[in-house]
């Protein structure tokens, strides 16, 4: 090692901790052992560093500083905890408000079932059925088969249960008069419908089953068109309302015990 390198490496020599790697330290020590000039510099730097280091570190610690700091940190911690609690509370309140607003917006966005439109569609259907002579085409015509009624009712009840809807309809319809159970598009929403025919005529009754998740069911109005009446029935099950659209002045021609099968199994 040359003096120039030794002077460079001396910068890394520390009073208590050396930044030199082992190889450099050995090489430097070897050079210092043979170079009086660099050795004197090393001693000088070392003694100066040692003297300054001792004085630098000799700072008296004030009495009670530790307790003051602990108290201060504890006070800070309490303040931080309070701030976190307030923040959490305000976040929760904001969320609650947002959910409330969301529910309000959602509720406001749900339409009331257009009962008059459904009654008028019933008119169209009734007109078509009469024009087609459907009266004679209704399966069976006249009084229905009690065995078929039982099977039909079981099928419809299973379908409604699968859709998480009440199995019972709002009136004791005669399932021997069942035409179909299906989905219809009402105001852009799929609605389950159970369709019955009239026992001795071309009329029909359709039971629309509305859910509160799709429609605003508060104050669903009755409606009357040329041939049909739309009659709402609130369900005992929450969130469901029935709307029965039927021809004629009353539902009797579609119900049990009105000349058809009596008291089919429920």
């Amino acid at each position, binding site marked *: 090692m040359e003096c120039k390198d030794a002077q460079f490496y001396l*910068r*890394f020599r*520390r*009073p*208590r*901790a050396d*930044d030199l790697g082992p190889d450099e330290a050995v090489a430097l020590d070897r050079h210092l052992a043979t170079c009086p000039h660099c050795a*004197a*510099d090393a*001693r*000088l*730097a*070392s*003694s*100066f*560093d040692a*003297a*300054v*280091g*001792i*004085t*630098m*570190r*000799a*700072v008296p*610690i*004030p009495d009670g*500083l*530790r307790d*003051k*700091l*602990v108290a*201060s*940190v*504890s006070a*800070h*911690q309490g303040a*931080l905890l309070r701030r976190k609690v307030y923040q959490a509370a305000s976040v929760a309140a904001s969320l609650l408000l947002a959910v409330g607003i969301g529910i309000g917006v959602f509720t406001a966005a749900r339409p009331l079932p257009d009962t008059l439109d459904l009654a008028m569609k019933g008119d169209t259907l009734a007109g078509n059925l009469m024009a087609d002579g459907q009266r004679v085409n209704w399966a069976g015509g006249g009084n229905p088969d009690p065995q078929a009624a039982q099977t039909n009712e079981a099928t419809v009840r299973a379908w409604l249960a699968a859709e998480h809807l009440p199995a019972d309809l709002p009136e004791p319809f005669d399932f021997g008069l069942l035409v179909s159970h299906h989905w219809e598009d009402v105001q852009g929403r799929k609605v389950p419908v159970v369709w019955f025919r009239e026992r001795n005529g071309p009329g029909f009754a359709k039971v629309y089953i509305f859910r509160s998740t799709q429609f605003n069911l508060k104050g669903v109005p009755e409606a009357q068109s040329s041939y049909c009446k739309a009659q709402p029935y609130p369900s005992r099950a929450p969130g469901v309302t029935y709307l029965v659209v039927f021809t004629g002045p009353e539902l009797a021609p579609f119900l049990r015990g009105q000349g058809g099968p009596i008291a089919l199994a429920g």
Partner: protein
Amino acid sequence: MGSASGLHQLVDTHYQALYRYAYRLSGTAADAEDLTQEAFGKALARLPQLRDQERAKAWLYRILRNAYLHRVRDQKRHRVVPLDAVGDLPERSAEELPEIEPARLQQALNELDEAFRTPIILYYFDDFSYRDIAEQMNLPIGTVMSRLARGKAYLRSRLVPPEPGENVAAVGDGPRRATDGM
């Protein structure tokens, strides 16, 4: 570490070193106490950032230095000396070195710009390598070495009486506004 006992342990382990560092940076006991308190307060708020307990000391030092820099940023109260003209250490024998008075050391430190004072303090606290100091100050290691060399030369000129005929004019004119020329 988030628990009360963990925080107390953090204080117990580091408060003395932190106070000494604060004292050497600020030059007064009152400021040092305030800075130490402020550093622990800020550390508490940022405690989740400390993942490696081995780095707690360096982390606390950095928080304290930032707190100090924040305090003095607009005060411009430090009148410091320029070190551009400070040369290498003059030759002298080790045996002649006098004992260093704490007040004179602090006075000399106060005269240095923080950019020189911080590496000098960390260097003599011994626990920090050049690399650690460079990380603390977010500087290249070469810059740290250069500042240390010049800072030490300045300390030497202030703490060790000149030998007859030695030229100390470059640093003997009293405190002035500092530039490190970098």
